[in-house]
Structure formats: structure tokens, C-alpha cells
């Protein structure tokens, strides 16, 4: 057995005992990617809970046609902050801050991220940015109220005079820099810190997706940062980039925003695709079906995503419709490749329906719905009449709720690696069913509402047709989702340090399962030989190597 093991260059003698501060001080000053990743995870999940609570308020207001729970002004703050918290402070940081930070170095056999202090800095930027944005609620004028996309000139100092808007901009700048640093750090880590034998085409899909995500971050986020600085200058220094009166162009904001915003969709999604890929392979007890095809699809999605931003602007009347239409439709192809790959991985496997696997299958189905409805929106004539209606809200909630399902899968799957303890599977499965069913009950009526003409961002709505019933059903779905989140909290409390995980509780395949749970300070005492994309599996099951379908050796 030992001839298959090579000792890590950061061997255990140096790191059995790690001297340094302990307790709270250790937590605050650490540069260990696992602890930073854990801070990220906790912060992001708290943001999910805050954003979710705002969503429940939105759904409570909309449960009746003329709701009086909140005022018109408060309603605008509600959906703006709900969307902003979810997108900027939860999904993104969770995707490339939390799990990526913990798992990527482990998957490639690295002792830490390439720039550990930089890594700590980005967490503190993220935390301070999040607090900055949330502080808007405590200002006299209330939080930002112009939607998470902040279309100019609604964001001008005239239309949004309050400090809440500035805090929104400030929060975004801080978290934006955090994201940019993440990109740099991930790329450096993946390019320079791979263990001997870990070639690019032996990296797990999750790591591959994070590499592509990081590149997209570097291409997209600086554009948003620049736009935010222009916006701030317009508001405070008398520039007129986005104001017609001063010769500026309001639509420019939409271009800048979506030039960042569409790649952002994939910056958010790719890491979760990676999570689902790993989980589905492990719980099917098979290699990823088309490993190279998956990587090719990821790269194609990323490349295309830089050329589709104006599909959010079809109804502006100032963009070239056919170009952005075909580019957007084409993204369906690599996305389809991914979906067939996930199914191909399950095919002829031995499916173990753990909570993580259920969450991933839930992701797959929900994402399929979101993906199919997205194809309509890539067709300008169909987008014209669904744009800014609840159809769009339903479409992107199918997608983001799929990401939430995958995120939960990721927590059940990798959580034990970092805490050393498993979560309770029975509560987990109950949580899954509530979350999965709740998601469909929540989104399905919204599709119909959109097609019946209900615009989004409405504090009240006319007593049309059956709009009240449909909205009420959707609110029931939101309650189910809310309960599922409570079950998750309950599960953590109930399972706290109860079920020891061991090194490799799922008979998983990649390198992170080769080390202890939790891993030692610099991650590995020893490494197996890396001869495929599944070193841990090869080590544990030397007689069960992957075979290509074309080869008939057995």
C-alpha cells in the first residue's frame, strides 16, 4: 500500500503542532484557508437567512392583492435588498468564497491558498461590505430602493437621495474587490500549487469550474467596479455619466451592469454545477461520465457568457437583437451537455440517495426547468412580453433555487470534511423534500402570473382573474422553503459533534477525502499517487479503474 503513497512536501513533522494564537484571536488573525472558508460559509448562510426572511415578507405582502404589511416605499426596499443580499452577499460569496476556499486547495493537494494573507483580506472585505450594505436599513431614508440592478437614472442623487443608496454602492465596491481578489487567488493557487501528478486534466470538475469562474470574475467584476465609481461620481461630484440633462447616457449603466451581470450569472452558477457534478459521481459510485466534455462545456459557457449581456436589454430598443439572441440560445448547447453528463454519470450506477445526492438531483430537475424557460427569453419577441413580468421572476428563481439546492448538497457532502461530523440524514431528507417541493410550489404560480401579465416589483396588484389565488399558492411555497431552512438550523443543533465522519464517509473519489476530517493545518500528511482525476478512488479500489465505453478490454 505504501508504495502508492508519496509524502507531501509539507510533511507532518513540521505541522503536527501548530503554534500561534488560539480561540477568538486565532479566528480573527488566521490565514488558514479552511478557517477563512468556514467564516465565509457561516457569513454567507447568515446572509441567506436574512435574504430569505425578506423574501418571506415580500410573499406575505403579496399573499393578498392589496396588502398593508408594508408601505410602497418599504416594499421597494424589500425586494431591492432581498435581491441584493441574495446575489451579492449570499450566492456569489458562498460559491467562490466558502466552499471553493475550503475545497479547492484540498482537491489539488495544496497546503493552502497561494496568497494566504490576501485570502484573509478578501474575507474581511466581504464581511465589511455586507455590513455596509445592510446598514442602509438603519438610515433615515431607508435602504436602497431601486432594484438590485439599480437602473439609472433611478439611482441619481435626485431620485435616490438617501444614504441607503450610497451604502449600497459602498457595500458593492467592497464585496466587488473581495471577489476580484478571490479570482486572483484561485487562479494562482490552481496554476501553481497543484501536487505532483495533478495535471490540469486530472483536476476534479469542481476545481476546474472554479478556475473558469475565477477567470470570469477577473474579466467581469472590474467593469462593475468602474460603473459603481461612475455612479458615485454622478451622485456626489457632479459628473453626468448617466444623466441626460448633462449629456450623459442612462442606458450606458445597463450595458455596464449587464456586461458584468451576465457573466455573473455563470460566476454564480458554475461552482454549483461543479458541486453537483462531484456529488452525483460519488453517490452513483462512478466516474464523471464525460469528464473532458464537462470541462469543454464549462469553458464554452464562460466564453459565450461574455457576449450575451444585452439579452437583458431586448426591450430597450437600442441593441442588436439577432446577435444577442443567437449567442444566448447557443448557451443552451453546453448547458445541455452538462445535463446529459449528469444523467450519464448516474446511468448504470449504484445510486445512494443520501441527502447530498437528493439535493443534487433536486438541483438537476429545478435547473432543468429554469434552463428551459430561459430559452424562451433568448428569443426577443418572446422576451418582449415576458420581460419585467413574473415570468422572469419565476425563471430566475428556478435557477437560483436550484443553486440553493446544490449549495445544501455541498454542505451535507463537504461539511463533514471540515467539521469532522456528519449531519443527521433523516432531518436532511425532510429538509430536502420541503425545499424541493416548496420551490416548485413557489415558482410554478409565478410563471402563470407572468404570462397573465403581472409585472414584477409591485407592492399591490389589481384583482385580476385568479391572481390572488396564484399569489397565495406561491406564498405557501415560500413558507415551505422557510420551514426547510429552519430544519437545516435544527439539524446543525441536533447533530452537533454527534456522528463522527471519518476520513472518507461517502467512499468518495477526489483528493480531499484522502486526508483526515478535519484536515491538519497544512492539509496533508501524505498523498496518494495521482494517475487520474480520481486519486482517492484509485487508491481505495485499485481493481476498479475507469474504462472508456469504446474500449472492450473486459
Amino acid at each position, binding site marked *: 500500500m505504501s508504495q502508492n503513497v508519496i509524502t507531501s512536501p509539507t510533511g507532518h513533522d513540521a505541522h503536527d503542532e501548530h503554534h500561534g494564537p488560539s480561540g477568538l484571536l486565532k479566528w480573527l488573525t488566521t490565514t488558514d484557508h479552511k478557517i477563512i472558508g468556514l467564516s465565509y460559509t457561516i457569513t454567507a448562510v447568515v446572509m441567506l437567512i436574512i435574504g430569505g426572511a425578506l423574501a418571506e415578507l415580500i410573499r406575505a405582502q403579496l399573499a393578498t392583492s392589496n396588502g398593508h404589511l408594508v408601505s410602497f416605499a418599504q416594499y421597494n426596499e424589500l425586494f431591492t435588498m432581498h435581491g441584493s443580499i441574495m446575489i451579492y452577499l449570499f450566492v456569489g460569496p458562498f460559491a467562490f468564497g466558502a466552499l471553493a476556499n475550503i475545497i479547492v486547495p484540498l482537491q489539488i493537494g495544496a497546503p493552502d491558498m497561494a496568497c494566504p494573507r490576501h485570502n484573509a483580506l478578501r474575507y474581511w472585505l466581504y464581511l465589511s461590505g455586507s455590513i455596509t450594505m445592510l446598514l442602509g436599513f438603519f438610515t433615515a431614508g431607508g435602504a436602497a430602493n431601486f432594484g438590485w440592478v439599480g437602473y439609472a437614472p*433611478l439611482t441619481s442623487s435626485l431620485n435616490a437621495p438617501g444614504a441607503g443608496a450610497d451604502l449600497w454602492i459602498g457595500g458593492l465596491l467592497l464585496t466587488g474587490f473581495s471577489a476580484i481578489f478571490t479570482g486572483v487567488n484561485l487562479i494562482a493557487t490552481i496554476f501553481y500549487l497543484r501536487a505532483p501528478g495533478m495535471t490540469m486534466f486530472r483536476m476534479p470538475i469542481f476545481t476546474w469550474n472554479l478556475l473558469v469562474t475565477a477567470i470570469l470574475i477577473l474579466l467581469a467584476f472590474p467593469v462593475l467596479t468602474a460603473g459603481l465609481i461612475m455612479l458615485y461620481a454622478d451622485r456626489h461630484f457632479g459628473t453626468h455619466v448617466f444623466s441626460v440633462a448633462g449629456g450623459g447616457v442612462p442606458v450606458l449603466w445597463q450595458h455596464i451592469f449587464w456586461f458584468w451581470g451576465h457573466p455573473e450569472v455563470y460566476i454564480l452558477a458554475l461552482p454549483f454545477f461543479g458541486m453537483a457534478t462531484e456529488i452525483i459521481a460519488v453517490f452513483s459510485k462512478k466516474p464523471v461520465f464525460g469528464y473532458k466534455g464537462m470541462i469543454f462545456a464549462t469553458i464554452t459557457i464562460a466564453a459565450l457568457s461574455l457576449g450575451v449581456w444585452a439579452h437583458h436589454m431586448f426591450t430597450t430598443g437600442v441593441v442588436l437583437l439577432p446577435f444577442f*439572441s443567437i449567442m444566448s440560445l447557443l448557451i443552451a*448547447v453546453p448547458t445541455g451537455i452538462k445535463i*446529459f453528463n449528469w*444523467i450519464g454519470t448516474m446511468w448504470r450506477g449504484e445510486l445512494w440517495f443520501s441527502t447530498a445526492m437528493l439535493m443534487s438531483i433536486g438541483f438537476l430537475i429545478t435547473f432543468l426547468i429554469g434552463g428551459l424557460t430561459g430559452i424562451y427569453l433568448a428569443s426577443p*419577441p418572446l422576451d418582449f412580453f415576458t420581460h419585467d413580468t413574473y415570468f422572469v421572476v419565476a425563471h430566475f428563481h428556478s435557477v437560483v433555487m436550484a443553486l440553493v439546492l446544490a449549495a445544501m448538497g455541498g454542505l451535507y457532502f463537504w461539511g463533514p470534511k471540515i467539521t469532522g461530523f456528519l449531519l443527521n440524514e433523516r432531518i436532511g431528507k425532510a429538509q430536502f423534500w420541503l425545499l424541493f417541493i416548496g420551490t416548485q410550489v413557489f415558482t410554478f404560480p409565478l410563471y402563470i402570473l407572468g404570462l397573465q401579465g403581472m409585472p*414584477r416589483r409591485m407592492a399591490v396588484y389589481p384583482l385580476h382573474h385568479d391572481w390572488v389565488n396564484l399569489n397565495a399558492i406561491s406564498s405557501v411555497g415560500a413558507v415551505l422553503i422557510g420551514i426547510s431552512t429552519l430544519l437545516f438550523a435544527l439539524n446543525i443543533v441536533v447533530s452537533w459533534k454527534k456522528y463522527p465522519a471519518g476520513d472518507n464517509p461517502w467512499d468518495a473519489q477526489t483528493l480531499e477525502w484522502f486526508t483526515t476530517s478535519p484536515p491538519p493545518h497544512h492539509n496533508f500528511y501524505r498523498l496518494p499517487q495521482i494517475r487520474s482525476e480520481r486519486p482517492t478512488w484509485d487508491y481505495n479500489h485499485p481493481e476498479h479503474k475507469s474504462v472508456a465505453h469504446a474500449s472492450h478490454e473486459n
Partner: protein
Amino acid sequence: MEKTPLSPQGTRTSGRIGRRLRVLLTIPAAGLLLSGCTLPSFGVSKGVTKSSVQVFHLWQWFSVGAVVIGALVLALIGYAIVRYRRKDESAIPKQSQYHIPLELLYTIVPIIIVIVLFVATLIVENPEVSNPRTDVVVNVNAFQWGWKFSYPGHAVVVVGQTTQSPTMVVPANTNVHVNLTSTDVVHGFYVKEFNFSRYALPGVTNQFTFNAVKTGVYSGQCTQLCGLYHSLMFFKVKVVSPATYDQWLLDNRNVSAATAAANATALQNNPYLSSQSTQSAAN
């Protein structure tokens, strides 16, 4: 994008290639798209304009694709879940991977589907966004939180805020050209029965043409978040016979401007905001 200039009547002078392509695409289009009539509606209605019907058929064909593909993929997932459920905890399946013909299949077939969808899109889109010669022009001005419809050359102006739902009167079976703009923030001009919407952008005049084939009153609403009373930014489109329309223009010559002034303070006294029972006014 560089917008091709529009003649005063809104006729777009488009490039030669564009025109050829359009002709080429429209011939098989009619047959293909009209045969969609017997398909289910998939939640969308035919609407009341010439292009809304085309858009409806496009919606049907996209839906057929979505339902077929969705059902196929769900069936595959369902089969895998039922058939390959783990029976023996220690069993290890064959570690098979890659299948080039299959991988090519699920790459090439989607590309073909996408091309078909794109061509269908162009067939519907090109006539919809072209600006045919028009007889009636309405200038639509969106503002926080209402609409102003003016009829150049006729001294007729209709203005109203929030639930007053100002009404835009247009003749049936006529090309109506709209010049759409905003005086403050971005708004969205959306009439459900037209299966169409367009932004009203400050500093930009967006132009489009519609041809309503059915008389009636259709509700419209602002769809783009525009501030505090966005939820209340209603309007109506009333499609009448051309004769009625001409009479309406005569009857309303110069009177609407006075009404507009009277409405200036309407927002403060908006009944919707002071009482719940007037909710039905919003219908």
C-alpha cells in the same frame, strides 16, 4: 447598435441583405407558424394585434420544444433514479466513462434545435420590429407616475396619473406608429393583449408600430421599476373603428390639455392611496 434612420412615417430604410433575408424567411414562415393554431396555448393568448398572433405561434412552437425536451430529460432522470437505486451497499458498478458517439449526439442535436429556434425567432421578429408605413402617429410620454398620449397634428393630448388610467385611443386595422420616450426615469410600456413591451427611456425616442385587429379596451401598465408608485402606473388602450377614431379626435381637440392641468394635483388626492375599497378601480 446604430439605428437605421426612420422616415417621418416610420419606414425603416434597411440594408439590402436584411431585406433579402426577410423576404426569404417570411415565405415559409406563414405556413409554418399559422399551422400552430391547433396546438395548446401554453398559457399565452393570441392577443389583438397582427404581430401578437405571430408571437403567440412562436410561443407555441418554443413550448412544444421545451415540453418534448423537458419530458425526455425528466424521463431519463426518472428512469435512472428508479432503475439504478442502490440495492447492495458494497456493490461497485462498472466504472465506464466516455461514449464518443453519444457525446456527439447530445452536442449536435441541440445545435440543430437552437438553429431552428433562431430561424423561427427571426421570422417573427423581423416583421415585428420593422416599421411599416403608418397613418396614425401617437407620441407616448411616460413620467413618474403616469402617461401622456399626444396626437401630433390633431391638438389632442391625453394625460393621467396612476389609477386614473389615461386612455390611448387608436383606430383598428391601421398601422399605428408610437414614438415612446420618458421625461424622468426608465419606464416600461406594456400591453398584455399586444404580447409586447418596450422601454420608455429618458433621452431616447423608441419607435414601434402595431396594428390592432380587434376593437376593445385593453389594460396596460408600466413594467419597469420607476420609483414609489410604480405599482400604480396604469393606462388603457382603446381600439375603435377608424370612423369612431376620427370623431374622437374632433371631439377632443384642445380639451384634453385643460383636463391635464386639472389632473396636476391628482396624485395627492389619489383615491387609491386613501382608501382600500377603491381597489377595483385598478382593474
